[in-house]
């Protein structure tokens, strides 16, 4: 990991030509891969170094800082927005806030389940799986309701496929194995129609992000993909070219929107404060602006029962 850092620092001064630069970047990526594959015991060191590489976020884990894990259930790659949101949260909560991002849902889930972070914006699917190790904080309101859908998409130039079952033997892109919309729903959809999800497609792969599913399907790398409907619609506003290369062939029933969860041993006061802050966003000018950028209408406290349908699907898929 230290070598990682050295290489990253090195490529600032050592880039002489494209080949060298590429070699350094590729090498850095390679190191990242190994790091990611590394044991969780090095989690703390990893996060510290990862944050060092992200100058927009606080350089150190400050004592008493509120640590919030983020996953690609929203467009989590907009760093300027994240900075604005963090600053707003710090002002409202009157304490430092640290956003913690990881390459996949699993690592964030591991962090919150292990109590390494306080809150996390996760998917409904892992929430129902670990609901006894987590506490529900708030559920976003999208188009006025705490629900969202999974979209099944195909490349825009594929005019023949009209349902998931048309994609038999094709290459399919999932977003994350811990995503409801990007994994569980298509798995359930195949299982429910009597197919074996593990053999239905000739190949499948994970892109570790909804946005990248749209990209993979758009360029034709995958013949189909499953994506968070809220992310797809938001992306359609910010990057219409990306979504324009895809076509929605199926929309799932409504599921509970990916919620904010807290670690199980969160002090009640902290949970209440954070929930109140989220719920109070629409009432604040800057909060409302941040919500507008998220294309959300606000948050509600929400009930665990919102995710019953996801739990049912998970149980069904697990049984097979």
């Amino acid at each position, binding site marked *: 990991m230290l070598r990682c850092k050295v290489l990253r620092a090195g490529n600032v001064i050592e880039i002489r030509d494209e080949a060298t630069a*590429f070699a350094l970047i*590729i090498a850095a990526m390679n190191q990242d891969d190994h790091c990611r594959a590394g044991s969780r015991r090095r989690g703390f060191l990893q996060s510290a170094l990862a944050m060092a590489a992200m100058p927009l976020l606080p350089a150190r884990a400050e004592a008493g800082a509120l640590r919030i894990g983020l996953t690609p259930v929203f467009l989590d790659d907009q760093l300027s927005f994240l900075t604005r949101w963090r600053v707003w949260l710090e002002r409202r909560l009157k304490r430092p806030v640290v956003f913690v991002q990881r390459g996949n849902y699993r690592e964030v889930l591991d962090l919150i389940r292990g109590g390494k972070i306080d809150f996390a914006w996760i998917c409904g699917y892992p929430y129902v799986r670990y609901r006894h190790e987590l506490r529900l904080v708030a559920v976003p309101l999208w188009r006025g309701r705490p629900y969202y859908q999974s979209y099944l998409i195909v490349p825009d130039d594929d005019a023949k496929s009209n349902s998931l079952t048309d994609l038999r033997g094709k290459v399919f892109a999932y977003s994350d194995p811990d995503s409801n919309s990007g994994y569980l729903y298509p798995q359930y959809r195949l299982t429910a129609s009597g197919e074996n999800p593990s053999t239905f497609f000739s190949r499948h792969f994970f892109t570790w992000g909804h946005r990248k599913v749209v990209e*993979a399907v758009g*360029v*034709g790398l995958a013949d189909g993909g499953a994506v968070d409907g809220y992310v797809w619609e938001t992306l359609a506003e910010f990057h219409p070219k990306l979504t324009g290369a895809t076509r929605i062939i199926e929309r799932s029933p409504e599921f509970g929107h990916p919620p904010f969860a807290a670690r199980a041993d969160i002090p009640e006061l902290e949970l209440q404060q954070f929930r109140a802050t989220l719920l109070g966003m629409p009432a604040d000018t800057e909060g409302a602006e941040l919500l507008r950028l998220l294309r959300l209408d606000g948050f509600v406290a929400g009930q665990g029962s919102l995710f019953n349908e996801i739990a049912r699907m998970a149980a069904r898929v697990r049984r097979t």
Partner: protein
Amino acid sequence: MIALADISLGWKIPLRVMAAVLGTALAVTAALVTREYDEMSQNLEAHAKSLARVMANTLVAPMLHDDIWRAYEIIQSARDPAAIAPELQADVVLVTDLEYRVFVSSRPRMFPIGSSPASQGGAYGRLRAAMLEGKPTEQKVIDPADSSHYFVMSPLVADGVALGHVVLGYSKISFLPRFTGLVGRAALVTLLVLIVIMPIAWVSARRTGTPLLALADAMRHVPEELEVARLAELPKSRDEIGQLGDAFVRMVGELKQKQELESQMLVSERLAAVGRLSAGIAHEINNPLGGMLTAIKTWQRHGGDDPLASQTLSLLERGLDQIRHTVAALLVETKPEDRAFEPKDIDDLLILVEAEAHARSVHVVVESSLTTPLPLRATLLRQILLNLLLNAVAAAEQGGLVQLSAAAKDGKLKLAVCNDGQHIPDEQLAYLFEPFASGREKGHGLGLWIVYQIVQQLNGGLFVESEPGGCTTFNIEIPYVEPV
């Protein structure tokens, strides 16, 4: 080629210099372009190989983990859509497994996951065979002649075990814009250099040719117009052309002398021939003439008193006498017994021409340095001078001037008679001394012929100078032997 050989040096030298400059420029440009091309393609290949190697190393983990998306992101990161050097961009990146099936490609629509690149046909069908050749762990560069791409293949090796291949396909066409750009730049530089050098080369080449042209131009006037050739402006340098010019000037001078000599000889030969002819004729006429005159005299003395015959014979006698005088004039006969030429002879001559000069208001001036008698026959010299003076008075302008100068020096008597009348044209000069060649109405045309003959008999020399607007001068030189 003959037409080319006939071109004037004034053009040929500059054209050759231009051709040499152009040829050199083109050769240098071509050499530079070729070198640059080689370097470029070598760079390209080295770049492609190192890129393929880095990719192969990087793609091992995604391939082992079956992480298609990460592999796709890696191969995409090697492509920059707004690259400065598009020819360094791989057009196609293929990652294939051991069965030569696509694991991932930069063009998923063309090479879908799991398909065989061979289904694209063409060069892709032959890549497999190339992969199996040689050592499985070494890089290969394949440049199929029938393909618009060339390929760099790097094996994916993990712990000595082959997993598949990374194939980078580079467009041969994308190489062209950079190369044509290079050629264009080289051509532009060459053009700029030529724009600077060409006029200089042209002017200096023209300058090299100019003396030769001047020489050739002067030579064209030989031998017809030697004077023009002699006055032509020729190079005044010390190099070969300058030497040539000097030699030419010398040659023209000698030619001119020779020409003058020839024309003089021609005149004297003709006069000599005329002299021989007239002497012969005079001799042939004199013999019967003498007889006829004697016969007439005899008849007058002893004949009858026939008045008609006397009258007729008298007529004959006058006629024959005239013939005798004419012939005598043609054939100047010298009499050996004569007195020496004295300075007072000149005074006598002045008296003789005075009447004529007075009639035409011509002023006669004498410049004589003679003080003593000269051992030359007075009669002949008086004849010469009288003829020349009378001619000069007749030729001089009304109220003009005739000048006679006489001097004796180094055994030569020098006489010169000049008048300020109209000059004698060149074509007339050649025949001036021939009998009956006179252009004048008066006189019998034998005056100068007699002068010539006498001078010849006295072994003297005679020449005439006549310039337009100047004097016409008859110069005579007669050698004499000083009495010891």
